């Protein structure tokens, strides 16, 4: 029996020591910071999201703590981990008070865990609160709501267009302007092909990137048609959609995209190469202006005041719309947990970030375009930067009509997979369109 009791005793001692030392860390840590308040205490608002980036969020918190008196405890992390965290917490009643959300499925899944926000908005900004938001943001905030449910479960914080960016220096050197038509695009790629930089860097490993590039093409081919297919009014095999997939295919078969485009990711690899001046053009979006954030520790020469970069719209397609169409939407929206310990305080924080002191700090970092009009960075570091900002805020975003998102994650995946299949030559545009239709049929 001795062996047994010793074994048990050892284990117990081990476990006790263990709890003791870990427990110590718990209390020790609390004592040290002095600001740590357990969840549920009033005065504290917890915030979890993947966006805005951590360094920016910390600056916003400072401003918002001053203006609302709230104590804000924020955790910012990468999107894939964030959705794991969000789902786990929502399922177990530990959702943070304020959470970052993407429009559509991600918001809808948590509808029951989220507080409707229109009352909060009305109390803060008055009855005409909706007027200050860009229309596309408000549309998307309610994307996927069941019929008859007009609640806002999320309010947009940042919005964006998806578009192309050019390296001005490389284009100037080659005597080129950003291409406005497909033919100009192919001609530019031919001309640039002789240089050392990649002419058109397409980081197509990411499904979101494939989808936003395709949506720009599709809306230039036939404005709005994909959304009709999404809602079931027309089949995905509609010739206009097949044609759009065909143009996507030509990015690869006509040598416009660089070799191996399908295996390059947008962040960090694609963005990094573009920032280092190794590519002439890249499809990203309005948020690229954040590279010139003056509060960054050090800024690469090309991004300094956006000296080396300029945005342009995806070129028009022969036989398609005569003007390039605007595609975009919400970058990140914010929601409030239905169990928030202090909903009023959470509302104060949320609205301050969207259109108050926190918003000003956020916008000063050029993180992305605000969801509301009338907030501008207090300081521009160059005329070019100010020009680009004005272009986004005054001209492009008000015109955005087409969403960069699909409502349903299954369709989102089906489209992204179909585009990858076409890009790798595993499917024709017709087969790809059919596979999206099959996915949609399987949902019904």
């Amino acid at each position: 029996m001795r062996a047994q009791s010793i074994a048990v005793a050892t284990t117990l001692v081990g476990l006790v020591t263990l709890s003791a030392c870990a427990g110590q860390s718990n209390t020790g840590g609390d004592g040290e910071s002095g600001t740590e308040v357990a969840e549920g205490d009033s005065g504290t608002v917890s915030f979890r999201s993947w966006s805005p980036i951590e360094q920016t969020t910390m600056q916003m918190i400072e401003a918002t703590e001053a203006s609302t008196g709230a104590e804000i405890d924020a955790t910012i992390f990468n999107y894939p981990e964030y959705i794991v965290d969000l789902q786990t917490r929502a399922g177990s009643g530990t959702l943070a008070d304020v959470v970052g959300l993407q429009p559509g499925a991600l918001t809808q899944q948590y509808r029951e865990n989220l507080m409707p926000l229109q009352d909060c908005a009305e109390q803060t900004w008055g009855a005409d609160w909706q007027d200050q938001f860009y229309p596309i943001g408000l549309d998307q905030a309610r994307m996927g709501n069941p019929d008859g449910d007009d609640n806002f479960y999320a309010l947009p914080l940042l919005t964006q267009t998806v578009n192309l960016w050019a390296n001005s220096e490389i284009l100037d050197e080659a005597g080129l302007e950003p291409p406005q038509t497909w033919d100009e695009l192919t001609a530019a790629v031919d001309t640039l092909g002789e240089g050392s930089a990649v002419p058109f860097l397409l980081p197509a490993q990411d499904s979101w990137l494939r989808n936003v590039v395709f949506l720009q093409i599709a809306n230039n081919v036939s404005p709005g048609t994909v959304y009709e297919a999404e809602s079931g009014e027309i089949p995905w095999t509609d010739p206009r959609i097949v044609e759009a997939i065909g143009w996507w295919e030509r990015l690869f078969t006509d040598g416009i995209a660089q070799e191996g485009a399908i295996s390059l990711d947008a962040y960090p690899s694609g963005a990094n190469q573009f920032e280092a001046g190794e590519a002439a053009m890249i499809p990203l979006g309005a948020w690229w202006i954040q590279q010139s954030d003056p509060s960054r520790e050090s800024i690469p020469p090309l991004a300094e005041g956006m000296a080396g970069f300029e945005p342009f719209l995806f070129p028009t397609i022969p036989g398609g719309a005569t003007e390039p169409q605007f595609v975009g939407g919400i970058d990140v929206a914010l929601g409030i947990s239905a169990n928030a310990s202090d909903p009023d305080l959470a509302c104060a924080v949320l609205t301050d970030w969207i259109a108050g002191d926190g918003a000003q700090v956020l916008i000063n970092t050029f993180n992305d375009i605000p969801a509301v009009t009338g907030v501008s960075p207090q300081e521009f570091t160059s005329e070019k930067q100010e020009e680009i900002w004005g272009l986004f805020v005054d001209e492009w975003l008000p015109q955005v009509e087409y969403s960069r998102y699909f409502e349903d994650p299954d369709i989102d995946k089906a489209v992204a997979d179909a585009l990858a299949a076409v890009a790798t030559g595993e499917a024709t545009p017709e087969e790809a369109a059919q596979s999206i239709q099959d996915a949609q049929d399987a949902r019904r």
Partner: protein
Amino acid sequence: MSIAARDRLASVAFLLPTLGLFGVFVVYPIVFNVQASFLDWNGVTEGTTVGLSNYSTLWQDPIFRTTLRNSALWIPLTILPQAAIGFLLALALNGPLRGRSIYRALFFIPAVLSPVVIGIVWQRILDPSTGVLAQASRETGLGWLQTGVLADPQTAIFGVIAVNIWTWTGFSMLFYLAGLQLIDKNLLEAATIDGANPWQATWRITLPLLRNTHLSLLMLGVIGALKTFELIYVLTQAGPNNATQMLPTYAFEQAFRLQSVGYAGAISVVLVVLAVGTSLGMTRVFGSGFLSGADR
């Protein structure tokens, strides 16, 4: 109390803490996944019971078949080279070689690195447009260096497997080093005296004596292959066009991106069944002694 009964009680005492931890942290997650696999459930709101329909959908899902094919390729193609290189390294670094600690550490470092940096760096090495190999190919004129291995759905999985071998070979080396410590040097000396050359001694004595090490590595390799996740996630995002999808990456995508926790549960259950099945299969093939410990 009889001696036998006392011994059995003692053995329970030795096992109890482990089994207790297991009951909580291993059994419950499996039960959770099994339960979920019978539901149509997004992980947040109430799910609805759908019986076996997740499993029948799985059966017809071409991406699921890709995951099985990839696992089938992954298992032999990582385990064999890893074991072979690892064993040779261990042999070389077990002897009185100057600087062997440094070599050991160098070969082991890849296993220590975060899959995040491994994924990013290898993407940059292999990128056929601007990658290290592509640049080297242009400079040296060696065309074969430029490889679109990750961009082609037919070859991408082999590219990932190669990176995985690079990552984990040091670990096989470590394992064989530990195994070599168990071998009685007298046996090898006796063989040498009998006129066997080092090659023969290695082949006839060392390798067979390392049987348990081979088998443990085999089992860990199979299970490691089945649960591969992070490397794929960072290196290829399971692409292109799902060509490098594995069971855990697909389960993750279903559970968190497509909000089908029930379907993901079914995938995880298949994973567990496959792993347990292979382990049991191995006991059949290699004798139960390897698993149950009754081989003496």
